[in-house]
């Protein structure tokens, strides 16, 4: 809420309706239209500028191909079916790793949030592991699982695990004691306590962590595919650069961006369905 600018006439300060109050529907409509057109216009303008720069040869279009070239190339590859194996490979790894990491992170976060002894035992260790860049663990996973899907999935799972673990633990710890007390007085069993109090009370913040993790999962899989994979979008991006196919490289980058946005939006929509009581758009600014 912004403050209303004071309006003066003589020695009297007058508070009176502004345009927003006099024409609420119109003001709202205009505001929405403006927001929507800005959201479309700014990216569009930047793409047009890029297109112009490439066609006018301000930039080297062999290194930075024009958006139209990238689009045409992407369309051709998609139509020919060359693109889908890589997209599918990446998607499979992300989803598998995400599922494992979320489940493990949630379980451990819940346990550590509710039992202080478990927390005392594991927190220093996990805190230390948390700060290690997960990509640095890839060699270990390669040794563990050999080549193939194993190390890729493990890397995504490890990354996601830490985000979900931390947000779950802090969410459970910040549940007001009054919520637990009310259940305890009624004699709730541990399972009832989880089902009626801990799960719903922690869910909104857990979902914020899960949403952030969704974006990071895509980020990390692309990096690891560049290092140790024979397919996937990360491999496509790196490989095509090595073959001087810069337009293919950009097609890969665009695919990654679309994949990341769609994935984290799906998690957000799922979260909204799961927590109808929570304020909307939580964590939008935090991700």
């Amino acid at each position, binding site marked *: 809420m912004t403050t209303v600018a004071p309006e003066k006439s003589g020695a*009297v*300060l007058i*508070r*009176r309706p*502004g345009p*927003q*109050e006099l024409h609420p*529907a119109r003001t709202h409509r205009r505001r929405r239209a403006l927001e929507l057109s800005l959201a479309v216009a700014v990216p569009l303008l930047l793409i047009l500028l890029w297109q112009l720069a490439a066609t006018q040869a301000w930039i080297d279009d062999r290194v930075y191909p024009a958006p139209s070239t990238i689009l045409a190339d992407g369309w051709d590859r998609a139509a020919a079916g060359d693109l889908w194996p890589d997209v599918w490979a990446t998607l499979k790894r992300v989803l598998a790793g995400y599922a494992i990491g979320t489940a493990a992170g949630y379980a451990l976060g819940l346990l550590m949030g509710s039992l202080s002894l478990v927390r005392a035992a594991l927190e220093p260790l996990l805190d230390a592991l948390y700060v290690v860049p997960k990509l640095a663990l890839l060699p270990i996973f390669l040794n563990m699982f050999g080549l193939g899907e194993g190390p890729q999935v493990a890397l995504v799972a490890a990354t996601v695990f830490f985000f979900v673990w931390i947000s779950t633990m802090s969410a459970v710890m910040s549940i007001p004691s009054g919520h637990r007390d009310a259940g305890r007085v009624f004699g709730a069993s541990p399972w009832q306590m989880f089902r009626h109090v801990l799960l719903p009370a922690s869910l909104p913040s857990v979902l914020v962590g899960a949403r952030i993790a969704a974006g990071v999962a895509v980020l990390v899989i692309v990096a690891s595919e560049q290092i140790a994979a024979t397919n996937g979008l990360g491999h496509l991006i790196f490989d095509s650069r090595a073959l001087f196919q810069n337009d293919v490289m950009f097609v890969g980058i665009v695919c990654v961006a679309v994949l990341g946005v769609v994935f984290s939006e799906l998690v957000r929509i799922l979260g909204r369905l799961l927590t109808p009581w929570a304020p909307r758009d939580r964590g939008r600014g935090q991700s």
Partner: protein
Amino acid sequence: MGDPHPEIHAKLHATDLTRTFGRPPRVVDALGPLDLTVAPGEFVCLVGPSGCGKSTLLRIAAGLLRPSTGTLEIRTVSARPAAMIFQDYGIYDWKTVRANVRFGLDIQRVPRREANARADEWLARMGLADFAHAYPATLSGGMRQRVAIARALAVEPELLLMDEPFAALDAQLRMILQDELLEITQALRTTTLFITHSLEEAIVLGDRVLVMSARPGRIIAEHHPPFPRPRTGDIRSDPEFTSLKRELWELLRKEAAPA
């Protein structure tokens, strides 16, 4: 009150004031239409059921919100004549007590030396001198609200707006702070709009008590507590006090109880 045109000399004058929230088809009428005239130096208490638009009226007066229709005029030469005291969250945890009291003066760019002097004066007056360098988190609820009062009054506002300032305090502390506020406002004669749920509080403090209806809030009754100024908290045991309180409660009960 025999003046046929009180609005000419009024400090604050509201005409056909309304406020709605939301957009069609889900529009909530929060306030009014409401007409109100407040004389300079008058202490007006507003009582009414929860959600009747009392706070909305105060926020319009403060300039935080615009009315949907009608106008509210404040006779002043200043662009920001009002200070507001909130029920909670009004004072900042990251500022010391003295810095909190000085906040309004800092915003008005009063020189530091003078601002400190004025803040210290108010701290002494509110019995907070020993806590000048403490952080609010270490204070009790009553102390915190004294800080809020000192902060509002330190800028010497022409219009003091109080939104249920004592609602979060316990009953004893509430009475003590009412008595303190009574003493201060009788000395300063600042024009005040005071919102409360407590009829007792309204009668103790107010020159005038306005009873508001359920949403959308309109003024349904007006009473002048018949206790001469300067008054003290002793009037609480006056038989007239009790009968006025009962009279107001009869009115309010019809509004507060859902039909």
